[in-house]
């Protein structure tokens, strides 16, 4: 039985965590020992090394077994299961006999580490060059959770989903784990040697043959390093390329003001927000996302403390920003420029433009009525001119300085401002001209994501002729595949570095753990060019900042590290002057003709860099609810024209380039337009990314990076199954989400309660339990503030050790997310109003699931929690059947990964890792509640040492803490003054399926919209009819 105990239910307990600690030392020794070996010998020497037990752990971590969560052959652990089963049949009762475990304490315990007491470190995630401030929770030297850093002046509350998921990236066993040359394992030392030759020969040439290709960056240290390098090699060139970038807005600023400035929006001051294809509520487009979400969310609360803002969205594809719009106008991307011009005209007194119905006029009127309290935001998908127009409009409306301020650009540019595509083109030209001898690709994956017409890949003869090609990156990818040398980069959670948030505040990035795979930072790579070998990035960082702060450096340094930012260095708003008000039209090639293809970074895996991240791959996309794939997202009319339904295959032909994609029909997509997400179809990536989606970069051309007209689509034979978690568009006439306009709300504040017969409080056949004493936990979710960004879902997954099940299992309806964000549509199918509704466990006071459990594995706690005892669960699944909210999840197979040691390090030690055959569900993060209670009960306050109660806000659930829009509030509903009980007292607070009298502890705050009377807003009462039912057809 002991075996079964091992596998039955396992948690990384403190003692087991401790015995990882020394293996860091082993890593060092290994590095030294391996420094001599190379190629085949490397492996043999590994064998020789594997004597001390800790090394086994290490060995696994370095070369993990093939053990993806959803592998389908009977593996070792399953045989253990069988053994345990047969033993059990032999009549042995409960598996109480514990296997012998070992405790491996420190030799010298570090000062601050106390086993079982996690520490928080302030750091930042560099993303698209910009910093996203974070606090990282570290348990026994192991980062186990990423949270937002609310103290940061950038003004964010939570995080975004990428920050949450970056944790999994760090522990990813598929990350590149060694320096390689031509695929053979080599060493850092050998790499540096190999650079010496070229550098010596380049010295006299002033480095004319050296080219650096990096991603966008805001790191002051890196900038100064590059400056130094370019000083040493004046002829060398530094190029930057990112497939998804901020070039259009920068270009727009150039066009409008003639200088490289960045616009910062102040949504808290905006009563009217106009988005011209701007997805400003998503981190995939806007580095100001966290602040936008916070301020937007605050202005959408129905308590009316602040006036609810009004959001107009004109967009070329459905986004979560469009989902929150009060008035939304779907236009094809190229039409939006015309719309912008027309709007500009109307604002500046013109008129009579009827192309866009009364939408335009009403909007113009509304804007002019809100001078100084409105803001127009242009999206990255739109060409610079639209941004310029937006600036012009803000200027005309006197918004500048109020709702939008201008600062210098945060991004570090090599020489002046050059767009990514141009920069890459320059590089390519030099390569074609054979000018390049040493190509340093620092990060990124241009071979995969460069514009197709640049042909920046192995087929590029000249590129392959470049004598020395070096790639530095987290993964062995398409790019490293065409380089001789690959240097494995250290993850940001493993490295010393710095970066700046959108507002310019520098943030020190500090490591939470020694590089698992001895990765290197960009800073260390660059030391090879400035003759300062052997300097660690820590030294470089300190050196740079010492230069900035000659004064009391140590204190400055300690404070910056502790707070997670360098105070007082944010960029100051500056005056800019508009150069003109009418701008040359962009030559949108063959605009309008044929079907338009819109390229968008994927909501989950961005430009492809997160393709190997299981959490993100399995995350249902906010609107399509697709997982594990991208698709040709189109509206119903186009689909009918093409005679396709979802999951049929179409071939897209764009200027002679062909690509087959599965169709997904979606509400609100403009007619004659198809949206494709970027980043899928990786060919050289980890096990997770393999076979996920189609590479749409193959259609993306340097002169049509955002959208392209004139595409032809044709149905082709075949069916491709997509894994969607939510097939339904409507609510079948059930009042699940409730929304009203401000007027309706003011007329009837209790509008959320009308539709259904609610049982009177305390209505029951039996007696009522007394929940009036002690803590009684409850949650209120504000559907008005919720922007459906999915961050909470990933946060929950990270906090609660929720496994990834893989595409096949998702198609079978077995995804494990404890928290899901439901999406419903009202209005018309062509242009619906989208409603988001996060659904965790409702913690019903009269829980239907509990009554039917035969073994009392789920029962009620005295604090009103619906406890789930995994080790008691036998797996009848009756509770799930009887749960009207279907929030329970079942381990149909052994989904949790017991085999990959490195994955164990990532697990939250406070949460049981569930085994096969066990039901699981949201627990309101009981581990956090318990920790808070224990802390409170050990502390005494006042002279008489009265006992301290848990304060309001002391316990935050993972979803609540991560929410960038503050849409989730959790707390003690017995405390009249707690935020949650105040919210629950609101008239627009309602419980889901109240008529079942389950008495949910989780309730919802209805959404209140601020529609314009002159426009017919979405009909909130009318539901779209359910259109796409492909899977249901198969049923």
């Amino acid at each position: 039985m002991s075996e079964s105990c091992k596998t039955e239910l396992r948690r990384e307990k403190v003692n087991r965590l401790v015995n990882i600690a020394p293996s860091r030392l082993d890593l060092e020794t290994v590095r030294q020992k391996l420094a001599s070996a190379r190629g085949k010998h490397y492996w043999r020497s590994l064998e020789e090394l594997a004597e001390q037990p800790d090394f086994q752990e290490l060995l696994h971590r370095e070369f993990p077994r093939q053990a993806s969560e959803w592998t389908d052959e009977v593996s070792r652990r399953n045989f253990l299961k069988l053994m345990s089963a047969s033993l059990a049949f032999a009549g042995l009762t409960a598996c109480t006999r514990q296997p012998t475990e070992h405790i491996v304490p420190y030799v010298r315990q570090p000062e601050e580490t106390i086993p079982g007491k996690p520490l928080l470190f302030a750091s930042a995630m560099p993303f698209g060059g910009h910093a996203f401030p974070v606090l990282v929770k570290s348990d026994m030297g192991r980062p186990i959770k990423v949270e937002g850093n609310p103290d940061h002046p950038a003004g964010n509350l939570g995080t975004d989903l990428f920050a949450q998921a970056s944790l999994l990236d760090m522990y990813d066993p598929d990350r590149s784990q060694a320096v390689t040359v031509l695929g053979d394992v080599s060493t850092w030392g050998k790499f540096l040697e190999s650079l010496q030759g070229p550098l010596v020969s380049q010295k006299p040439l002033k480095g004319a043959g050296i080219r650096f290709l990096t991603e966008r960056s805001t790191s002051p240290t890196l900038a100064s390093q590059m400056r130094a390098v370019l000083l040493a090699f004046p002829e060398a060139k530094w190029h930057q390329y990112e497939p998804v970038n901020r070039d259009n807005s920068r270009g727009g600023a150039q066009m409008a003001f003639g200088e490289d400035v960045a616009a910062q929006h102040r949504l808290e001051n905006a009563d009217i927000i106009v988005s011209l294809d701007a997805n400003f509520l998503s981190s995939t487009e806007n580095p100001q996302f966290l602040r936008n979400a916070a301020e937007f969310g605050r202005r959408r609360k129905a308590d009316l403390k602040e006036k609810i803002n009004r959001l107009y969205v004109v967009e070329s594809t459905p986004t979560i920003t469009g989902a929150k719009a009060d008035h939304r106008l779907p236009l094809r991307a190229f039409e939006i420029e015309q719309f912008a011009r027309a709007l500009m005209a109307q604002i500046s007194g013109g008129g009579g433009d009827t192309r866009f119905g009364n939408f335009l006029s009403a909007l113009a009127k509304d804007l002019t009525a809100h001078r100084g309290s409105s803001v127009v935001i242009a999206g990255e998908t739109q060409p610079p001119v639209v941004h310029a127009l937006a600036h012009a409009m803000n200027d005309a409306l006197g918004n500048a300085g109020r709702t939008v301020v201008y600062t210098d650009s945060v991004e570090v540019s090599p020489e002046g401002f050059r767009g990514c595509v141009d920069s890459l083109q320059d590089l390519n030209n030099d390569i074609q001209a054979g000018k390049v001898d040493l190509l340093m690709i620092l990060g990124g994956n241009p071979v995969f994501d460069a514009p197709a017409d640049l042909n920046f890949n192995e087929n590029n003869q000249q590129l392959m002729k470049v004598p020395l090609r070096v790639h530095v990156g987290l993964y062995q990818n398409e790019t490293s595949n065409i380089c001789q040398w690959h240097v494995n980069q250290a993850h940001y959670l493993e490295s010393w570095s710095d970066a700046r948030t959108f507002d310019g505040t520098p943030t020190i990035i500090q490591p939470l753990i020694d590089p698992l795979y001895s990765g290197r930072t960009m800073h260390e790579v660059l030391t090879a060019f400035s003759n300062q070998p052997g300097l660690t990035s820590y030294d470089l960082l300190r050196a740079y900042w010492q230069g900035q702060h000659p004064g009391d450096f140590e204190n400055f340094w300690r404070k910056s590290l502790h707070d997670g930012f360098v105070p007082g260095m944010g960029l100051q708003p500056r005056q800019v002057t508009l150069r003109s008000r009418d701008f040359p039209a962009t030559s949108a090639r063959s605009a309008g003709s044929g079907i338009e293809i819109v390229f968008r970074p994927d909501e989950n895996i961005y430009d492809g860099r997160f393709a190997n991240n299981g959490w993100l791959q399995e995350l249902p996309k906010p609107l399509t609810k697709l997982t594990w794939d991208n698709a040709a997202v189109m509206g119903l009319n186009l689909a009918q024209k093409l005679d396709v339904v979802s999951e049929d295959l179409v071939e897209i032909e764009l200027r002679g380039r062909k690509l087959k994609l599965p169709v997904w029909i979606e509400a609100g997509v403009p007619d004659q337009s198809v949206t494709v997400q970027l980043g899928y179809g990786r060919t050289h990536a980890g096990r997770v990314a393999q076979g996920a989606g189609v590479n749409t970069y193959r259609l993306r051309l340097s002169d049509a990076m955002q959208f392209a007209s004139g595409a032809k689509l044709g149905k082709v034979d075949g069916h491709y199954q997509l894994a969607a978690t939510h097939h339904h568009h409507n609510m079948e006439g059930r009042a699940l989400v409730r929304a009203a306009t401000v007027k309706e709300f003011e007329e009837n504040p209790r509008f959320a309660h009308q539709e259904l017969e609610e049982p009177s409080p305390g209505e029951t056949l039996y007696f009522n339990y007394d929940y009036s004493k002690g803590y009684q936990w409850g949650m209120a979710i504000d559907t008005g503030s919720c922007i459906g960004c999915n961050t909470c879902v990933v946060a929950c997954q990270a906090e609660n050790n929720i496994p990834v099940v893989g595409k096949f299992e998702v198609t079978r309806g077995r995804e494990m997310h404890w928290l899901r964000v439901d999406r419903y549509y009202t209005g018309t199918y062509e242009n619906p109003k989208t409603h988001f509704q996060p659904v965790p466990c409702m913690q019903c006071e009269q829980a239907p699931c509990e009554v039917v459990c035969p073994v009392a594995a789920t029962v009620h706690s005295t604090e009103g929690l619906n406890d789930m005892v995994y080790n008691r669960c036998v797996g009848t699944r009756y509770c799930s059947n009887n749960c009207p909210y279907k929030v329970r999840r079942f381990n149909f197979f052994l989904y949790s990964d017991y085999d990959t040691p490195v994955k164990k390090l990532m697990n939250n030690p406070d949460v049981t890792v569930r085994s096969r055959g066990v039901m699981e569900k949201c627990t309101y993060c009981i581990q956090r509640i318990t920790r808070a209670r224990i802390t409170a009960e050990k502390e005494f306050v006042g002279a008489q040492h009265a006992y301290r109660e848990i304060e309001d806000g002391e316990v935050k659930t993972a979803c609540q803490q991560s929410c960038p829009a503050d849409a989730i509030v959790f707390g003690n509903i017995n405390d009249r003054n707690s935020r949650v009980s105040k919210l629950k007292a609101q008239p627009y607070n309602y419980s889901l399926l109240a008529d079942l009298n389950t008495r949910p502890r989780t309730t919802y705050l209805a959404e209140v919209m601020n529609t314009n009377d002159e426009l017919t807003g979405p009909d909130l009462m009318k539901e779209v009819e359910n259109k796409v039912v492909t899977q249901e057809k198969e049923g």
Partner: protein
Amino acid sequence: MKHPPIWGLLAEFDGPNSLVHASERAHAEGFRKMDAYSPFPIEELSEAIGFHRTRLTLIILIGGLLGLLTGVAMQYWISAIDYPLNVGGRPYAAWVAFVIPCFELTILFASFSAVVGMLALNGLPLPYHPVFNVPEFSRVSRDGFFLAIEASDPRFDTAETRKFLQGLRAVGVWEVPH
């Protein structure tokens, strides 16, 4: 008392009627330690040999009540006393729910006591019995109708009783050894 040389006498009759008839006569004669054997149940037969009522029903009743009691006690103790848990807001002692196991246990215990009681009172299993010594007795499960009078009966006398039985138009009479 002294051990009789034989177990008793076994007489066969040609059918239910004559067997019942004979049994009644023998009982009237005053024979008590006797028994009748038939291939299928014959109500009148047990009456004829003066066997009127059995205590079996009482045993079953007791068994049933015991089952009921077990059900009530067990469920109440477990759910309300030993580990009271708030299950979906239902009472600790949820009588409505407890009815069913109580009912089932009642039936179970009663049925057991019925079968076990029947066997016990019949003194079964009893693979060896003197009457089996008579070869013809093997027909008892087919078409044989027998009457046996035991030697231990005070009014028994091998010769007399044999004559008496033959007087009842027995098809055959055999001495049954121990």
